[in-house]
């Protein structure tokens, strides 16, 4: 009888009562979890291939500044191989941020989507990370989101990414990507006030379409090619902050290093798109 009661108590505890915690260290999620409210993350949260994590509107993930390998980059992170759904709303966005009193880019590492089975992000703000989000070897849909005060705002490689209606600003790189055979659509975003608006690191062949974006006030470069980006890249139909289009002075390409490809911005728009109207609440 006592054994039966113990088993029933255990079942009740593990499957019926909502677990309420406000802080996690290293955590592996292999089941289906839905989070809301505020949680402080002091380590690596990993969603396994079998796992699923859903963040409800208004959820706030606060990453502590921990640097286990002393490389100057925070090591707290959210790493997803399974499903990740973060759908905030305009009024109640989801926030991923630093716990530091005086937060800096790189306080925490990243939201990393690696071979993720599903990745859907709406109305999410990611700030003070090494990378606001990284997407690798998977399909990801990101819209109405904001990436600010990171080293890399949005970074992807070998991915099929849709990035729309989002605002990327005050990062070292607004977008940093290595296409490597992947495809993408980057449309109707505002990419502004980053040191580099778009950093095409290597292996880009024009499979990622950047169009109808406002790409403005990124200094010193609106578009920069990495050391091994030898193929020409075009960024058509964007607003570059000037009705004359993309200025050569704001591009790092073969005009500065002959081994690189050439950057063009064909059919430039003559006025801004105002792509992030919904996020900014205009």
């Amino acid at each position, binding site marked *: 009888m006592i054994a039966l009661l113990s088993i029933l108590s255990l079942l009740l505890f*593990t*499957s*019926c009562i*909502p*677990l*309420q*915690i*406000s802080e*996690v*260290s*290293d*955590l*592996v*999620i*292999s*089941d*289906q*979890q*839905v*989070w*809301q*409210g*505020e*949680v402080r993350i002091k*380590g*690596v949260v990993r969603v396994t291939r079998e796992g699923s994590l859903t963040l409800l509107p208004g*959820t706030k993930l606060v990453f502590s500044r921990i640097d*286990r*390998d002393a*490389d*100057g*980059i925070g*090591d707290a992170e959210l*790493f997803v191989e399974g499903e990740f759904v973060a759908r905030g709303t305009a009024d109640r966005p989801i926030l991923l941020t630093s716990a530091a009193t005086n937060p800096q880019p790189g306080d925490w*590492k*990243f939201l*990393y989507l*690696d071979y993720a089975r599903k990745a859907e992000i709406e109305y999410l703000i990611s700030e003070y990370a*090494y*990378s606001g989000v*990284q997407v*690798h070897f998977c399909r990801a849909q990101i819209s109405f989101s904001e990436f600010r005060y990171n080293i*890399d705002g949005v*970074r992807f*490689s070998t991915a099929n990414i849709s990035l729309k209606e989002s605002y990327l600003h005050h990062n070292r*790189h607004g977008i*940093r990507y290595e296409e490597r055979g992947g495809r993408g659509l980057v449309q109707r975003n505002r990419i502004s006030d980053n040191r580099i608006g778009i*950093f095409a*690191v290597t292996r880009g062949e024009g499979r990622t379409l950047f169009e109808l974006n406002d790409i403005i006030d990124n200094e*010193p470069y609106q578009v920069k090619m*990495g*050391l*091994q980006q030898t193929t020409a890249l075009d960024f058509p139909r964007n607003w570059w902050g000037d009705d004359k289009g993309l200025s050569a002075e704001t591009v*790092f390409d073969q005009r*500065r290093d002959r081994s690189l490809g050439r950057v063009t911005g064909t059919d430039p728009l003559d006025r801004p798109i105002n792509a992030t109207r919904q996020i900014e609440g205009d």
Partner: protein
Amino acid sequence: MMKVLRPVPVLLLLILCVANMAFSCVGKSLEIGTTGSVQQEVLANIIAELIGERTGTTVKVVPFNSSDEAHAALLKADIDMYVEYTGVGQTVILQAQPLADADELYKAVKDRYNQELNLIWLKPFGFDAAQSLGVTLPAEAAPVVRKDTLKKFPALARLINKLGGKIDQQTIALLEKEASGGQSKQVAHGFLKNNRLI
């Protein structure tokens, strides 16, 4: 307060910290040693800024008190590279006789470092290091890099060699003067920008 709204059939809280998993890109960081002088600081920061700006790779500058310390750290793979002087390499590290001819000296240390230490001397910056340091050893300054680092980052040698011959006597003196207030990183960045290298 976070709530888990759905059942939790499997929840594994790891109490002990796990080592950071080598999750590709961010793990690709490099470390450059310096040996204490303003000249070393500014040269290391020039390399660090060049690599960081052109490849996106994170580069950390690590201070040491001497060439001996930096060399030991390089051999142990605690760092990936540092700037060494051919005269120091020949007489202090390799314990060999000094050579008067700069080209002959560079070739001698380059060959022995490669064959005996698995370390690669890249192109000298271009200034007379002996003159700039006020010593009598005939010497050039050049980055020395671990061979396995160059294998991991195949484009690295070509990139760093863009600095070869780019810094003459007048330039290094100016850079040192500018960086003497502790602004090595900013000075390095300005040098690279002015030379259209970043």
